[in-house]
Each structure stands twice: as structure tokens, then as C-alpha cells.
């Protein structure tokens, strides 16, 4: 510590000096990064100007070769950005982002999910291609039947396997996101029960104008690749309520709309709080 010029023995003082030193190093490194970027921008601007003026690599002459040597680096950097953009575009539109690792013996894939305009989690698979196709590693949630899906067509039809798997994870991500939206936007509704696959969702709502009556919506999602429920049941501490026509018709609402939207409709109609 003495060697670095930290004279004091006081631990507080030492900590303070260490922190200052770290901040100084970070500032210097960022300044360097900023200056490098400025130089690169200058370089690409000059490259564009030269090309705009009509410079062509095809004309002969030693002067031409020297100029080419100047322009090569910025042109390569431009190509690098172009490829980066293309790869990102493929990812955004739902591509599998296939990347070879270990000299082609394994491949990594990603499965992106979204709910309408919101991008959700991306899941990953690493496949071993040395003896047939096997799943080497993955981060697919255990509630998804990965092994049985793999047994069906992983070996015989990779695109079909990936398509089915993508449907499963997409639907799961959608359902999970819908529960999140309920918790965020409808604080008066209680999520009583759900499971990891989000195949069951039980919601408790209070009836408007009646503090003591609650209604329970039980949503069952029998189809794992759908983000909408296949069955809706109503229960209430007021036994006659579920049979009233105005409540019976809410069932179809939950079958057609995602739960957070169905609940909002009911709330706007003044039926629930």
C-alpha cells in the first residue's frame, strides 16, 4: 500500500483513496474510448468523402493502392456493422440465431419470445451433432416436456422440432407475462393460484358495491401451445351468483381475451372492483 503512495494508516482514509484511484482510472479509460471513437468517426467521414468524390478501386496506379490501404479498415468496419445489423434483424424477427461452436461439433440456438409488442425472455439450446443430434445444454424451464418433444422428431426433422418447441416456450412466456400484467395493472385482483407452466390460473375479484362478495375465476389452459384458456369456471361465496346470466356470459370473455384484458373490460363495465 505504501508503494502506491497511500501514506495513511487510517482504513477509512485508505478506502477513500482507493475509490478515488478507481474513479480516476475509469475516467481515463473512458476518455480514451471517447477519443478513439472520435478518430474512427473522422476516418469513416473521410472514407465516405473520398468515395463520394468518385474514388474507385479498379483504376490502376501505385497511388491507388496507397489510397486503398487507407480505406480498407473503415470499409471493413462498415461491413462488420452491416453484418451485426443483419444478425440482429434476424434475431428480432424470430430467427434461431444459429452459431457453430467447437469446430462445428455443436451448435447453439436461441428461441425468442414476445407478447404483442413486448419482447420477453430468450431461451437457449446447445445441440451436439457428433452422433446424431442430441441436446447438450439448455435453459428451457422443466415444465416444458423437452425430452418427449425431442424423442418425437429431434433426429428426423430438426426444423419441425424447433418449431414445436418454439410454440411451447412462446405460449408459456405469453401466459407468464399476462399474469405479470394482471399483478401490475389490476392490483385489486388477487392471483390466488398458478403453477410453473401457467396452465392453471385462479383469480379472485371483488364485486362492485358489495364488500363481502367475491368471485373466483378459474382458468384452465389445456393446450400448452395456446396463450388463451380452454376452460373457465366461476365460483363465489354467494352460491347463486355464478348462475346469473350476467356472470355466466363473462366466461366467453375469458375464452376470447387474455385475462388482464378481460378483467379490464369487467372493471370498466363496473362489475368488479
Amino acid at each position: 500500500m505504501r508503494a502506491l503512495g497511500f501514506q495513511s494508516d487510517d482504513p477509512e482514509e485508505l478506502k477513500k483513496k482507493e475509490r478515488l484511484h478507481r474513479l480516476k482510472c475509469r475516467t481515463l479509460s473512458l476518455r480514451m474510448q471517447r477519443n478513439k471513437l472520435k478518430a474512427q468517426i473522422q476516418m469513416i467521414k473521410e472514407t465516405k468523402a473520398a468515395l463520394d468524390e468518385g474514388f474507385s478501386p479498379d483504376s490502376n496506379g501505385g497511388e491507388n493502392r496507397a489510397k486503398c490501404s487507407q480505406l480498407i479498415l473503415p470499409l471493413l468496419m462498415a461491413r462488420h456493422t452491416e453484418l451485426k445489423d443483419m444478425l440482429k434483424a434476424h434475431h428480432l424477427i424470430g430467427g434461431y440465431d444459429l452459431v457453430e461452436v467447437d469446430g462445428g461439433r455443436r451448435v447453439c440456438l436461441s428461441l425468442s419470445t414476445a407478447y404483442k409488442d413486448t419482447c420477453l425472455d430468450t431461451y437457449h439450446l446447445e445441440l451436439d451433432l457428433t452422433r446424431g443430434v442430441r441436446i447438450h445444454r439448455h435453459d428451457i424451464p422443466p415444465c416444458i416436456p423437452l425430452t418427449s418433444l425431442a424423442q418425437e422428431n429431434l433426429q428426423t426433422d430438426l426444423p419441425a422440432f424447433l418449431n414445436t418447441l418454439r410454440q411451447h416456450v412462446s405460449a408459456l412466456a405469453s401466459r407468464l407475462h399476462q399474469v405479470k400484467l394482471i399483478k401490475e395493472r389490476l392490483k385489486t385482483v388477487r392471483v390466488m393460484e398458478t403453477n410453473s407452466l401457467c396452465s392453471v390460473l385462479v383469480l379472485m375479484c371483488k364485486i362492485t358495491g358489495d364488500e363481502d362478495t367475491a368471485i373466483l375465476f378459474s382458468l384452465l389452459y389445456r393446450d400448452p401451445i395456446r396463450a388463451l384458456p380452454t376452460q373457465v369456471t366461476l365460483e363465489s361465496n354467494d352460491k347463486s351468483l355464478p348462475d346469473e346470466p350476467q356472470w355466466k356470459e363473462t366466461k366467453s370473455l375469458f375464452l376470447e381475451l387474455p385475462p388482464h384484458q378481460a378483467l379490464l373490460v369487467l372493471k370498466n363495465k363496473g362489475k368488479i372492483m
Partner: protein
Amino acid sequence: MEEQYEAEIQQLCEEIAMLEAEKENYEREVSLHYGQYLHSMLGVMVEDDLRNKQDIAKLMDEIEKMEKNLARQIRLNKINLTGCCTKTIEKSKTKVVQQYQLTGHCYHVSFNVDFIITEEQEDDTLMRKVTNLNVVVDGQDFTDISSLLSRVEETNSLLLLFKTLESFSENCEHRSKTFQHFKVRQVS
């Protein structure tokens, strides 16, 4: 003294983000208009001409890997992107807004899709949202899916759009093959 450094660090991070966006946008313009020169320029080069040899070699290596990955993508994903025009509209330390204009085709259905992606860093998570989704589909029988496309546009459901395009164009392909098959049989 600490505060001074912290303030400068904050300011530098913002400046770096802006400069990165500026650099990327210039590079995109150069690629768009002069990308085809790269190949012939590399041909003109001779080993000893290459200044910044290490930088160039490293870049060329990375580019080769990316080109291979892109080729694989196109083979596996049925969606073929023939054109990708990107522009960084806004970039700060925690937020990036980019505009994409994509052209391509899936089987015989060609499309033009525009959208804006906003990415925001909130603590540990990256939030990504789609806005301003615009779709133009060209091909036979697009009237079948025009109402679905309008809904997808309204809700900015980018991923759903491409999944729909994929299954729709696959169906069109099957229909046309089946039709051809019966046409041939009729004639014979």
C-alpha cells in the same frame, strides 16, 4: 474530487453512446452505397500494404465468422432477408432506439417490413419494445391475411407477424404444388 470524477464519468458515458450511434450510422451509409467496393479493394491489397495489420486481420476473421453464421441462419429460418436498412435514432447509456427497414421473402411471398425497436436498461433487465410496425406483403392471395396483418400492425406484434408470414407462405407453397400436381395429371 470524487463528485467531479463521477460527473465526468456520467458525461463521458453519454458522449460515448452518442458517438457510437453516429459512427454506426456513417458506417451504414458507406455500406449501402459503397459496400460492393470492399471485395475489389481487398483484391488490390498486397500483404505489405496492410497497415494496421493486426486490426485488419482480426476484423476479417470476425467478418468471416459472421458471414458463415448469417448463411446458416438463412438456411434454417425460412425467412430470407434480402435487405436490412438500420438507423440508430437515439442512443444513450440506458436507452437505444433503432429504426429497421427490412425487405425479403418467405417462399414466394415477398415483404417490406418497417419498425422501431426501443431498448431500455432498467437495473438488471433489458426491456425491448416494438413500435410503428408497418407491413407490405406482395404475392398471390394476400387478401386472405390482410385483416390479420392489420391487427398485427395495430398491436405491433413483430414476432407474430413473421410466424404468420411463415405458415401462410408455406400453405401457399403447398397449395400451388398441389394445384400443379393436379394440373399435370389432368393434362396426361
